[in-house]
Structures are given as C-alpha cells and as structure tokens.
C-alpha cells in the first residue's frame, strides 16, 4: 500500500493542478459560491444583529406602575415586595415623585415652563419594573395591575410585540434563504466539476478498469471542490466583514442608540460558519458530479 501521507499529497497535488487547469469555469464556480455565501453571510449577520437587538431591548423593556397618591411608606414597601415576587420580574425600582420630576427636568432641560411645573409637581410615585424577557411583558403588566395601590400600568407594548414577531420572521427567512442558496451553490459546483470530470473521463474509466477503488478516484475531485469552497468562503467572508465594518461605523455615528454587534465579535463565528459551509458545499457538489461517472 501507498503510505497514507504520500497518497494524500498526491491527491492534493492533483486536486490543486486541476483547480488551476480549469481556470475560467473554476472562476465561475468560485464566484457563484462566493455570491451564495455572501447572501448567506448577510442573512447570518442580519440575524445575529436582530438577536442582539432583541436581547438588548428585552432587558431594557421597562414597565412603569404608577401608584395612587398618599400611600404610606409601609404600604409602598409591601407593594414593592409583592411586585418583586411576580414571575418574570427582574428588578423593581421605586421612583418617588421628586425623582420622576428630576428625570423629566433632565430630559426636557430647564425652561420657564418647567419651573412652573416644579412648583406643583403633578407626577405620582411609581415603580420601574424590569422584565427578564420581553415576551413576559404582557403577563407581568397584567399582574401589576392587580397590586394594591397600583393605579395605572404602561409599557411599550407594541414595540415589544413587533420586535418579537420580526425577529421570528427574520430568523425563518434567513434559514429558508440559506437552504435555497446552498442548493443553488451545490448545483453550480456540481456543474463546474462535471466539466472537470468529463475532461478526465478517460482516466476515470481506466482507473476503474484496472481496479482503483472508488474513493481513490473520488478524492482528487473532492479536494478540488473543497478548495473551491474554501476560496469562495474566504473571499465572501472578507467582503462581508469589510462591508459590515463600514456599515457599522456609519450606523454608529448616524444611529448611536441602535445596538450593533461589533465587526470584531462577528468575524470569528461568521468566518468559521462560511468556511464550513463553503467546504461542505464544494465537497457535496463534487461528490454528486463524480457519482454519475462511476459505473460501479
């Protein structure tokens, strides 16, 4: 038997030689896989950012429970304890009317109208309630309504609901897009490699006749397909990360409140995913291409 490493070196050499020989078709295949991977990558990056956004907003969703006037401190404490025990509540923070007014002042800035407001503070005492998960917001709000001394409950209901729905739809779309584009990529790689295989059909025929095993015949083609996938993945990953970094920089100045996953954090998982996808696509494509020419 040929030693394993020397056989592998030979496969590698032939795969690489063929990669260079079929120049134009290889470029076409690599380009197509690159585009497919780019789209997949955009979907992944978009999905990751939505998840990030959802997670950030999830922990930032606050419910405000306004208290009726004239509660005694002991009553307030009792209500606070009761709220803290509601399932899904992450934190309860008491906001006195004075504190609420101070916040409002910070937000609006000092103005003559505000000075008038400060004299007769119209704001009630309230609790800021943070929810562990945005999906629990509705339930928690309902439970708050029933607490003694709670007069009114407000939260950004629609924003939260929409966010949850959009995230789900985006994840589904990203998944479908990924599946569809992967199928296209496999077909393109298969067709490109079929030309390589056709160019070498005589060799394959003789190899079969003299008793080469099917795996021995397959390996060079598999390596070629995987090389194409690898090159495409690196190209797509580079382009994607560059575009992403640019877009992230723009957005950070334009929309500073929008939380984005930093490009650096995105790089490793994205590159690993794309290289994995690319190599798998290349291998699958070449496997299909060679199968038709193996008679046994």
């Amino acid at each position, binding site marked *: *038997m*040929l*030693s394993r490493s*020397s*056989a592998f070196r030979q496969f590698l050499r032939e795969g690489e030689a063929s990669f260079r020989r079929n120049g134009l078709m290889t470029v076409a295949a690599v380009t197509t896989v690159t585009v497919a991977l780019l789209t997949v990558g955009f979907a992944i990056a978009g999905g990751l950012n939505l998840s990030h956004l959802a997670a950030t907003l999830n922990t930032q969703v606050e419910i405000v429970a306004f208290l009726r006037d004239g509660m005694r401190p002991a009553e307030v404490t009792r209500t606070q304890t009761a709220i803290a025990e509601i399932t899904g509540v992450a934190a309860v923070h008491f906001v006195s009317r004075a504190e609420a007014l101070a916040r409002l002042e910070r937000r609006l800035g000092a103005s003559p109208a505000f000075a008038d407001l400060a004299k007769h503070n119209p704001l009630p005492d309230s609790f800021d309630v943070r929810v562990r998960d945005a999906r629990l917001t509705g339930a928690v709000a309902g439970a708050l309504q029933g607490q003694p001394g709670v007069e009114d409950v407000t939260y950004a209901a629609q924003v939260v609901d929409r966010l949850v729905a959009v995230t789900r739809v985006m994840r589904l779309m990203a998944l479908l897009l990924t599946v569809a584009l992967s199928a296209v990529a496999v077909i393109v790689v298969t067709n490109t490699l079929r030309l390589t295989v056709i160019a070498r059909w*005589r*060799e394959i*025929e*003789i*190899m*079969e*006749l*003299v*008793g*080469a*095993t*099917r795996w*021995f*015949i397959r390996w060079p083609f598999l390596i070629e397909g995987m090389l194409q996938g690898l090159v495409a993945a690196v190209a797509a990953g580079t382009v994607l990360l560059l575009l992403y970094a640019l877009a992230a920089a723009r957005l950070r100045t334009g929309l500073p409140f929008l939380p984005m996953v930093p490009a650096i954090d995105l790089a490793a998982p994205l590159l690993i995913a794309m290289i994995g996808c690319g190599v798998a696509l290349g291998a699958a494509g070449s496997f299909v291409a060679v199968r038709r020419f193996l*008679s*046994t």
Partner: protein
Amino acid sequence: MVQLQRVSKIYPSGLTALTDISLRIDRGEFVFVVGPTGSGKSTLLKLLYRAELPTHGRVLVYGRDVGRLRAGTVAGLRRTLGVVFQDFKLLPQRTALENVAFALRVTGTPTSELIPRALQALDRVGLAHRREAVPAELSGGEQQRVSIARALVHDPPLLLADEPTGNLDPDSSWGIMQLLSRINLRGTTVIVTTHNKAIVDVLRQRVVQLADGRVARDQRQGLYAVPV
C-alpha cells in the same frame, strides 16, 4: 477459472444480448469467442470483468459469484483481471511507461516499485525500448502492446481481450495474437473475442461461436467457421 451458469443478459433498453449461456473455461485455456457483430461477444466479456451484471444466471470468476460482489470489492476483482480493448484506452498525454505505471499507481503500489514493475511489463510485450514514447508516436500494434503490458502489470491469472486486433493491419494483428499466445503458454488463461478468421484458423485453439446471444458451437482446436 470461469464459469457461466444459464446466463442471460437483457439490457434496460430491452435488447437481449445473451440467452441462457452455460460455459466453463479452465485454468490455462486459450479461448476464441467468435460470431458476427451484435452476437453478444463483448457482453460476455463485460460480465466477466463486471462492467455489466447478468439478468439471469450466475457468473463465476475464480469461483466467486461476480454478480453478487459488493460495490466495494469490484476494484479487488479488477486487479486480478487484465482487460484489453480494441481502442487501446491509453492516456494520450502520458508515455508508454507512464500508461503502464498508471495502473499500478492508482491501485496503491509503493512508488519505488512503479517503474521497475512497469518496465518489466513493457519488456514482456517487447516494448521496453519505446518506454518514453507517447501513444501518438506509436503504431497501432505498439499501442495495443502497451495496453497489454498494462493489463499484465498486476500478473493476472486471467486476461480478457475484446477485439484486440479490430483496429490493426494484418501484420500487427498477427504479432498481437502471437503475443497473447505466448502469454497463455506462460500459464495465463486468455479469452479473446475476434472477427479475425485467418488467425483463428491458424492457431487452432478452442472456439466458442455465438449466434444471436446463444452458444452455437464450442469446439476444441476449432476453426473460425464450420467448413461446409
């Protein structure tokens, strides 16, 4: 060595190539399979190196049922068979030596043995001096010798030749048949399909005549056709 038991072959297109063939070929025999084009000669050989599977019946090579080989063991069978074709099936960009060594290389022979063994096989067909020539620089007869060398490089007990002289002029054909006879004399079982009446009649070997996919005649020291 080779046994066919009530073998029929019907191609997916519906074409019946062989009907109820029973045949036994022993170690060391030299057998001509003759008959008109389309009589099933090539199909018969294809069944032996498992390029086709029988529709009915059993094909035994070295006592093993070829039709029941798992896909993974077909390569093993092929390494114990030599096959030669009318169109030589040589790789045009490689030299004679490389063509022969190719059969060794793709079956996992250690690199250090490739050249010596390929040279030895070329020497057996009398072409060691032409080892550096590519097929285009060789005559038809020489190309067929290279393909025979490639078939012999694994030292197979059985050599199959499908119309080996079909593309050759009479002189070259004669040389190839003499070569096959010499290989047979050294112990290799040889099965040759042919249209070459002159050669069959001179060599007086066993002749199996096929007609419409059936064995019409099986004769020791036979002639190409029954004299009228």
